[in-house]
């Protein structure tokens, strides 16, 4: 996976030189180990900044809406699906994009590493195909990457980009695991009151910083409902009711559009797994309509279509 970097830089240089694109959106190496920073590259002198490793967790599709240029963009499986969602929702045109696809083997969850180290700090990190080696003051550990993946990556069924113009390596084998929704079923299985309790507990540390919302490519509304001031739909304090309103409404706005990319969860400074909400809706949309978001740029999203032969009478 780490070797993708060379190919990414090569392709980037070429398409910038040939003026296929005006700019490239990718990742550069972070100022801290186990972090990366999204970057915009405009010329070939800077294209060597482009970087790849297993900590490119953010979803670059987030940086597309409202751009007019011709854009080269690096896309993992999930990013490519969110790009597809953007295209279907008219946030960007397919012709504007040169998608550099990355067959993804999963991103590592920084928090799992931090919690494994229990307070010690990573000062240096190297990785090979299967392993990651972390070093710090007085320790060195080699860990199996697969044991430290983001939860959504260990159940991801679309690791290869769904649309791309170039690909940086051989396609990876897609998982055949029949059911990635064990966690959702667990919550579905408990009683109503317990469920409410578990959701309340989930968000009890939320500080309403909105990192989850802002990291999400789906949240491109010019003004989010929580930021409306006339009328004001939801209170702005950290009253649990208002916080819950934010989370539930945000999740519902993502119904049938969420790709389970995990950016929202990774962005949260309070370690809240906000994906718990959207995953339930992803499962519902799959069960009810047989749809997963962002697999095609031709099909309208399920909650945006009408079929005369709908099985529900009220809509006919």
């Amino acid at each position: 996976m780490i070797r993708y970097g060379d190919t990414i830089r090569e392709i980037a240089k070429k398409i910038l030189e040939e003026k296929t694109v005006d700019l490239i959106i990718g990742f550069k190496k972070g100022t801290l180990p186990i972090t990366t920073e999204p970057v915009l590259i405009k010329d070939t002198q800077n294209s060597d900044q482009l970087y790849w490793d297993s900590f490119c967790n953010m979803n670059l599709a987030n940086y597309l809406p409202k751009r007019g240029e011709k854009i080269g963009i690096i896309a993992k499986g999930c990013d490519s699906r969110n790009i597809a969602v953007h295209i279907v929702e008219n946030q960007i045109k397919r012709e504007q994009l040169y998608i550099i696809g990355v067959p993804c083997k999963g991103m590592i969850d920084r928090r799992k590493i931090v919690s494994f180290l229990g307070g010690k700090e990573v000062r240096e990190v190297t990785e090979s195909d299967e392993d990651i080696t972390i070093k710090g003051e007085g320790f060195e550990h080699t860990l199996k990457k697969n044991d430290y993946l983001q939860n959504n990556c260990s159940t991801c069924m679309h690791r290869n980009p769904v649309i791309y113009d170039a690909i940086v390596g051989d396609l990876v084998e897609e998982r055949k695991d029949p059911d990635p929704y064990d966690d959702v079923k667990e919550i579905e299985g408990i009683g109503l009151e317990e469920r409410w309790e578990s959701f309340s507990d989930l968000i009890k540390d939320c500080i309403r910083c909105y990192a989850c919302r802002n990291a999400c490519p789906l949240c491109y509304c010019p003004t989010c409902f929580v930021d409306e001031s006339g009328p004001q739909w939801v209170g702005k304090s950290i009253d649990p009711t208002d916080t819950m309103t934010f989370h539930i409404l945000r999740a519902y706005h993502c119904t049938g559009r969420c790709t389970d990319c995990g950016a929202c969860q990774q962005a949260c400074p309070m370690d809240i797994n906000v994906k718990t909400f959207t995953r339930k809706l992803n499962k519902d949309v799959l069960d009810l309509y047989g749809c997963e978001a962002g697999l095609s740029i031709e099909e309208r999203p399920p909650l945006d279509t009408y079929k005369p032969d709908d099985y529900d009478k009220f809509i006919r």
Partner: protein
Amino acid sequence: MSDKIIKKEELTNILKALKETYEVIAPVKENGFYSFKPFKDGGNIDLNFTNTRLSPKSLLFPQSERIFEFNLDEKSKDGYIVKEHPKDYPPSVIVGIRPCDAKAFKLVNINFDNPEFKDPWWVKRMEAMTFIGLGCNEPSSTCFCTSVGCGPFNEESLDVMLFDLEEYFLVRALTEKGEKLLKQGRVDKDVDEGLQKKADELRIKAEKKISSSVPTDKLKEKKINDLFNAPFWDDVAFACINCGTCTFLCPTCWCFDIQDEVTKTVGDRIRNWDSCMFPLFTLHASGHNPRPEKVQRVRQRFMHKLNYYVDKYNTGVACVGCGRCVKYCPVNVDIREVFSLMNGL
């Protein structure tokens, strides 16, 4: 008062004694991270931390605070009268606060307690608070306190300093408030020379361990317009997703918004943290927004900390180098790099 010494296991009993007079607040580990919470007799205190996830600023400046209440029923006897929401300000003590977070309180104090304006809630809480600091034996790789006028054993904003000497704490009273508190807690055993020396060495060693630094020497002479129009803001801002993480976690960010919340005829006036990263922060009632784009909001955050504040108060930058924004920014926007860019322009 000369330095005192206590055995580590005595701390819990001392805090229990203090609880008779003070509200005791201490670092507690919950859900995998540290925060300042009320100390419980069972001993939930855990001093084994580098920095709490959220700064302790909410103890004096809560994220959401009811400040006034009102009644909109004309017929009621207090109809249309705004009253201050009643509150207690019990004497309190924060145990284990890091020197940078304590310095941040001093820095924010300029905003809430100055000859022109006095924020009554802040001022009363500040008066009631005693700060027992804990020096940082093991600073984090993202700590850069020593280059912004603080340090792992900086004493300037504390009432008492604790030096962690393996089995002992060396306890140093730094103010009258601190002395009073030590008397209350019956901390009276003088330290011997050996441990005193060990504490000094510890401080020097910790300062050397700070591996991260930022340049600040030229910030004072910079012209506001040069920095404001600097060519680097687009690059600095590109990755930023304009969330509130950096400003909400920061111990020195002091901005707030005031909201009225009404149920039927009664309402509360609430003060909430706000952030210059949010578009709503500058939205005018007319619909005009003077900072409509992300790049302008990102620039505001850094200009405020490293230029406006510096120019206005002449006491250095509005950053204590705690490293929270560096560690928890989801897209690695690193203020240390912005220091270099602004100082080096």
